[in-house]
């Protein structure tokens, strides 16, 4: 038998081991301690300025012969006006549909021949035009990137096509449980001002290429943006290339992002959205919490980590590893310029939706009373954050993305340096008290997308106010 098995195993690798001894009793299988730590130094950040005042930030990383360049602007879909929801986003989409003398097909073909990409997009509070290139093809790639950035033509024919694609995307979002939950939640927490008024078929149809040009001219001006570069490149190399392409563009007048209204719930309320026949229910609980510029930030981040921010946190260990209700449950803090949003989220089996929600509420209640975060839990969460941090700095994408975050949200320039001391400074008492004060003891907006015919009655029995909404925000039923 043993002989046969050796024959069938890859023969060149295996020495004939006729008598395999059982595990020797002398092997020490107790948990080992660490070796000596390797040094970690944060990447050096270099800064230059073009003659029109545009700032250039470079983070070098010479592991691979690739370069990434991003032009990031302080704008986004929050600038959308009523009835034109989606304007910022589609305007950014249209940039590479025609620029300078090239039509969209030509741009696509030229980039493909270089194995480069130029992409553009808008989020709620930023807009980015990004180029990714092999080092050897950087200059012709930057030519296309600069044309897309500076000379977009917004061709009408392409807008017709993209408009139709976008309308189908909207339909798609209205069938995906996660985006369905966000459509409803955003409307509840941003009120009438911005994100709640999501893009609709009607708003897309109301947008013209003239509107896009006007939006573009107002928002994508040098004084409203910055240039972020990373990869196999130095400031000395990139600055003249950027100066040649952008340096003479007039700085323009910076448009300002409007103030965004944020609505905190006054009483925990459950909002239900029907998805007939759904095999699972998507559950999200949210509220606004202090953002990164607030003193509570580090305490809250660590407290949340321990309660729900990672696999080993209470929330997932309860809902997944103990109960088996879900494939996973997490809570996290998401930042934008309006503030920071705490979100607990899980997709749970339909039949156990109410019991899963009950566990979520119980975890929030217990952390306030009989089961405060322990010293071990908090130190564990801190260790996770601190020891895991250096590994983040591996990719050009992260290096440039991190600088984008610092710029967009006005964080201190040495943000990356502040991270480890910031986490280390959190005490178990502060992690506990801040999490309770900002989250656990506070009212939440809870959204559930699922098969209401089967899940509604047990959810109503939980005792919270329940409102049934449709995806357009209309109240179907108010309990």
């Amino acid at each position, binding site marked *: 038998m043993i002989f046969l098995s050796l024959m069938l195993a890859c023969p060149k690798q295996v020495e004939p081991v006729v008598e395999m001894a*059982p595990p020797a009793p002398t*092997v020490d299988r107790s948990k080992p301690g*660490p070796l000596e730590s390797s040094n970690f130094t944060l990447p050096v950040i270099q800064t230059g300025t073009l003659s029109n005042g545009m700032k250039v930030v470079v983070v070098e990383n010479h592991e691979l012969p690739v370069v990434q360049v991003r032009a990031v602007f302080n704008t986004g879909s929050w600038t959308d006006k009523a009835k034109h929801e989606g304007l910022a986003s589609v305007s950014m989409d249209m940039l590479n549909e025609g620029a300078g003398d090239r039509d969209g097909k030509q741009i696509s073909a030229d980039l493909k021949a270089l194995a480069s990409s130029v992409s553009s997009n808008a989020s709620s509070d930023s807009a980015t035009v990004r180029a990714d290139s092999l080092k050897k093809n950087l200059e012709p790639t930057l030519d296309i990137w600069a044309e897309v950035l500076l000379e977009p033509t917004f061709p009408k024919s392409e807008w017709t096509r993209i408009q139709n694609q976008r309308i189908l995307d909207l339909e798609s979002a209205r069938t995906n449980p996660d985006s369905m939950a966000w459509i409803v939640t955003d409307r509840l927490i941003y009120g009438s001002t911005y994100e709640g008024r999501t893009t609709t078929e009607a708003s897309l149809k109301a947008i013209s290429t003239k509107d896009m040009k006007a939006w573009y001219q107002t928002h994508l001006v040098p004084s409203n943006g910055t240039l972020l570069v990373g990869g196999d490149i130095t400031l000395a190399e990139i600055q003249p290339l950027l100066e040649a392409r952008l340096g003479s563009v007039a700085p323009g007048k910076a448009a300002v992002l409007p103030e965004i209204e944020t609505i905190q719930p006054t009483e925990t309320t459950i909002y239900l959205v029907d998805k007939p026949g759904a095999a*699972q229910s998507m559950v999200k609980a949210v509220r606004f919490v202090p953002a990164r510029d607030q003193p509570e930030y580090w305490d809250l981040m660590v407290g949340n980590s321990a309660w729900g921010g990672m696999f080993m946190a209470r929330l997932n260990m309860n809902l997944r590893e103990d109960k088996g209700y879900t494939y996973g449950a997490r809570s996290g803090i998401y930042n934008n310029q309006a503030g920071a949003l705490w979100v607990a989220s899980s997709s749970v089996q339909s039949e156990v939706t109410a019991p899963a929600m009950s566990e979520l509420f119980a975890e929030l209640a217990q952390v306030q009373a009989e089961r405060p975060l322990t010293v071990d839990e908090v130190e564990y969460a801190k260790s996770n954050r*601190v020891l895991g941090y250096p590994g983040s700095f591996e990719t050009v994408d992260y290096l440039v993305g991190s600088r984008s975050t610092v710029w967009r949200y006005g964080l201190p320039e040495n943000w990356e340096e502040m991270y480890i001391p910031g986490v280390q400074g959190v005490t178990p008492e502060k992690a506990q008290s801040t999490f309770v004060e900002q989250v656990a003891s506070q009212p939440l907006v809870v959204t559930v997308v699922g098969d209401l015919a089967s899940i509604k009655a047990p959810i109503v029995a939980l005792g919270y106010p329940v409102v049934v909404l449709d995806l357009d925000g209309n109240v179907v039923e108010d309990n």
Partner: protein
Amino acid sequence: MLALAMMLATPAAQAQDLSIPYETYTLDNGLKVIFSEDHSVPVVQVNVWYHVGSKDEVEGRTGFAHLFEHLMFQGSENNDQDYFGNLQEVGARVNGTTNGDRTNYFEGVPSAYLPLALWGEADRMGFLVIDQERLDNQKEVVRNERRQRYENRPFGTSWVTLQDKLFPVGHPYHHTTIGSHEDLDAATLDDVQGFYDQWYVPNNAVLVVAGDFDPATAKGLIEQYFGTIPAGETPLPERVVPDTNNFEMTEEVVVRQEEQGVPYAQVWMAWPSPALYESGDADLDLLSSLLTDGKDSRLYGKLVIEDQIAKSISAYQVSRYLDGMYVIQAVPAEGHTTDEIVAATDALLAEFMEEGPTETEVSVGKVQYEAQFIYGLSTVSAKADRLNSYNFLAGDPGYLQNDLQRYLDSTPESVLQAAKDTLASPGRVVLHISPPAEAAQ
């Protein structure tokens, strides 16, 4: 500008040096070890492949290889707690995945914690704790994974149907890795023990250590933790050798499915195709590039940009160890149907089979793949997984350069030949999924 682009499109006849440095040795118990030093960040990757996947499952136990992967995170004799427990504490990035061909486990840990990662992997390789409570809990978790990732996601079960119809009953890829609720529910502790004894043995595993570590130290730790784990007693089945077209599909199978909760119709056309690294495999990737990559590509350019009968269309070769599958997937534009898309695609493919690709189309495709290989090396964890992948699927951890060379060696003739061999056959599956008729606009 065009001329310049064309000039740049000419790839080097010989690929630039993209090799991942490595050394390899084998323990007495058959565990193969591959080392690759890379000190770019103070992190070391431990990456273990077990040569077992859903293709090795027995009848009535679909989904078992993946369920077993979950159990590998539930504790072992000397580390009897959630596997994430000791590793998340040191900021590790930990996970495992199962596919048709293999199961992998990996953790990226701060360099100083290499002993912890090796200890944990060895302990679950040699001393897994198997009990009913853990099995029952993870059955529920995996069934919820199925609900989340397949059933509750629009078009989420398309792949289940495609594999079911394309690969005949009894073919190892006839079923998908997630398996069925019924089979998952039927799994017993005996199944778990049997699977562990058969497959989770050092002589069926390969350990890659990559990143910021000292090989001499790692060697000592590996000997200590893995060296005394006995080789398997049950013989490993002889590996099925991939063989192009080892099953024949002679007729078209058309499936029309109505599904609650899908936003619009979508269609998949799927053909049996060569296995990974077989003749024609790289050519089909290049074919995909010229068919649907970019606004000037043949199929995307025609159906999406010019005629605007499709919202999206993409072609791709799914290369796997035993057999491949070539897929063209499309969503019709508003007012158009999946049948129109199939007809237009067939017409364009027929035309293509007459003309064949141009030199430029093929050389631009090569440029794409050359860049993709470079971007694919941007993390040490990706390099570690690639070493293991090449070792298992190509029989050589250093296959990277040869892999790229396959693309560079392609010609318009070889791409056309591969297209004919695969797509000209009448045997294929056409799967239409649409919203229920009464809900359709």
